[in-house]
């Protein structure tokens, strides 16, 4: 099924498609999920897909990406292939619970064990919706803003599958969960998967999300991930974005942190055509700790836009946003980070920085910090730099016999290290170091496919 009808407005096109096929969309899913659709599609019709007139999307117009004629699957398409032939995660010694999403649909064959002995559940959103309705009722669409955010509303109206993770009270995951999002089709495809991760009080987990495109066609992803980190829960959330130049990826992360919880999210964007990462973070209790980090390496016509909304709702919490980028050729980027400190949130510490290295005169970065502070006893700061490599440092390295190219590389690598060093899963950190180095050396740019796949670390 595809969405045609060029004459009517984009949002009406999606709405019409929804109304026409909603019985199929709802099929097999309980009220816990379906009850949100009607409100969401109406909110979407109100808000539409943001264009540059929307303040938070000033530097990224997503409309062209939505105007293309995608196949939208409201039933999983049967794709005949042997997964092992085309994809293997080649991070050596990375021992994880692997979960696959293929074009946004949970891939059952890859997940034999959905319930671990300690009660941890790793399964599809579809299955969870039917098996654990009380968890869905309590958490699904409770953190995502399907009222005001058009893209989130669109996802809520259409979402049919995704990954569900549940970590019971006081339990720790024995190893990280690795969600691999694969996009593979001969036709342009759109995916709107929906993830829900619930971490009960005192639980611990590490989650890795890897995004890959496995075929050349145009892809559009508009995903929503909701994370609930209960009291004193600890979570590391790492995301590796690695899609080809014809892909558009919009990710919407909604994180709710309860008191004493500690979450680090780390997004490494190695490759992608157009990327928009939205982070909506709510520190909903005292003494929360949050780190929201990002590293992006872009070249040619790539564009990446990171938007962070950090909401300090209660006293004594600390947050730290750090986004760093290396932009080459005529790549462009935007960073829009917002810190909201509510009136009650005394003793908040909130920091934000966005540092960029522009390797050419044509590379451009727009960085916009916003502080909204209603409490008086807080420590907040924001800062940003966009410029070239430090000339003194370059000269120092060269004066020891290190060639210009290598000296530049060492400095870029050092620049990136500050983020990569915060990946608290050692084999992954090592691999990302290696890929970053290759990427910065320009050894991976010609590779239009996923880099985790063709990096071939094990072979040299």
């Amino acid at each position, binding site marked *: 099924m595809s969405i045609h009808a060029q004459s009517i407005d984009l949002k009406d096109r999606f709405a019409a498609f929804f109304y026409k096929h909603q019985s199929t969309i709802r099929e097999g899913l309980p009220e816990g999920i379906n009850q949100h659709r009607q409100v969401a599609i109406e909110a979407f019709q109100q808000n539409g897909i943001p264009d540059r007139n929307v303040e938070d999307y000033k530097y990224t117009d997503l409309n062209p990406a939505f105007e293309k004629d995608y196949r939208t699957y409201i039933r999983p398409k049967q794709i005949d292939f042997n997964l092992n032939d085309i994809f293997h995660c080649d991070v050596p010694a990375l021992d994880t619970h692997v979960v696959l999403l293929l074009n946004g649909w949970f891939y059952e064959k890859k997940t034999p064990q959905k319930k671990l002995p300690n009660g941890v559940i790793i399964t599809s959103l579809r299955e969870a919706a039917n098996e654990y309705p009380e968890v869905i009722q309590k958490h699904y669409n409770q953190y995502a803003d399907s009222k005001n955010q058009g893209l989130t509303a669109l996802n809520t109206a259409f979402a049919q599958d995704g990954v569900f993770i549940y970590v019971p009270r006081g339990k720790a995951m024995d190893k990280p969960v690795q969600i691999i999002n694969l996009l593979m089709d001969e036709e342009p495809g759109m995916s709107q998967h929906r993830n829900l991760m619930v971490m009960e009080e005192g639980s611990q987990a590490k989650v890795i999300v890897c995004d890959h495109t496995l075929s050349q066609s145009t892809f559009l992803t508009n995903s929503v991930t909701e994370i609930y980190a209960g009291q004193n829960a600890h979570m590391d959330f790492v995301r590796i974005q690695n899609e080809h130049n014809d892909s558009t990826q919009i990710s919407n992360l909604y994180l709710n942190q309860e008191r004493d919880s500690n979450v680090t999210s780390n997004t490494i964007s190695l490759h992608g055509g157009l990327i928009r990462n939205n982070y909506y973070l709510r520190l909903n209790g005292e003494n929360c700790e949050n780190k929201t980090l990002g590293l992006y390496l872009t070249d040619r016509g790539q564009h990446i836009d990171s938007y962070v909304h950090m909401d300090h709702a209660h006293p004594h919490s600390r947050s730290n946003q750090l986004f760093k980028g290396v932009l080459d050729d005529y790549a462009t980027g935007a960073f829009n980070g917002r810190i909201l400190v509510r009136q009650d949130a005394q003793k908040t510490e909130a920091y934000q920085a966005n540092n960029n290295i522009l390797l050419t005169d044509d590379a451009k970065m727009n960085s916009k910090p916003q502080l909204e502070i209603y409490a008086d006893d807080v420590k907040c700061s924001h800062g940003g730099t966009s410029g070239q490599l430090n000339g003194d440092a370059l000269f120092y390295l060269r004066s020891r*016999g290190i060639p210009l190219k290598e000296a530049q590389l060492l400095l870029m690598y050092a620049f990136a290290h500050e983020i990569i060093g915060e990946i608290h899963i050692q084999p992954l950190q090592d691999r990302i170091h290696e890929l970053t180095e290759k990427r910065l050396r320009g050894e991976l740019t010609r590779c239009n496919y996923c880099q985790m796949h063709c990096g071939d670390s094990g072979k040299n």
Partner: protein
Amino acid sequence: MLTIKNLHVSIEDKQILKGINLEVQKGEIHAIMGPNGSGKSTLASVLAGRNLFNITEGEIIYEGKNLLEMAPEERAREGIFLGFQYPVEIPGVSMMNFLKTAVNEQRKHRGLEPMKSSDFLKMMREKKDLVEIDSNLTNRSVNEGFSGGEKKRNEIFQMAMLDPRLSILDETDSGLDIDALKIVAHGVNKLKSSENATIVITHYQRLLNYIIPDRVHVLYDGQIVKSGNKDLAIELEDKGYDWLRKETQAG
């Protein structure tokens, strides 16, 4: 080994060096003294290849080659070493990786294989002992958070690792206490041979109690106004730079 002829250097239309002439033979130690702002660091930077400056006149011949045409890294591989007055902190670049890269680039230039890790570590240990540098410093980022003295020792340590033919040490003694000064001087003396040469730039005479120079030059307002043997340094210490000002103005 090194011949500087009538070197004029300016930055942003401001003349800093106004006709420097200097001849250094292998096996020699030269000292360059002079008050703050006289152009000592500028001369050192120009020798190492910093491109902030405009060379408006003159030439520099090093081992028969036109030095001014060479990139900083080429000069380094040809044996020139600059000990920085203000060594740069480079967060995120480990000392180990930095030194390994530098040493192996120089080896490559000489047609040698990259050094084996075990050999490299052994060499590091030896050279560390020479300058009595804290072992932990090599586990950190280049100069990051090093004290003033540690930075200076680190310069000598790098010099020892790279085994240069012409070393230019820019105020390596300033900010050092007397013990540290002796260690640095000891390092320099240990590395001295009949094949290499050293230019020590200093503000004070005291370093020259430990490093005995063959020639002493006084740089004043962009010119070498006086040259002599080691006694010149002592004379300068006694009479101060004012004495020279009077003398140059009279002459």
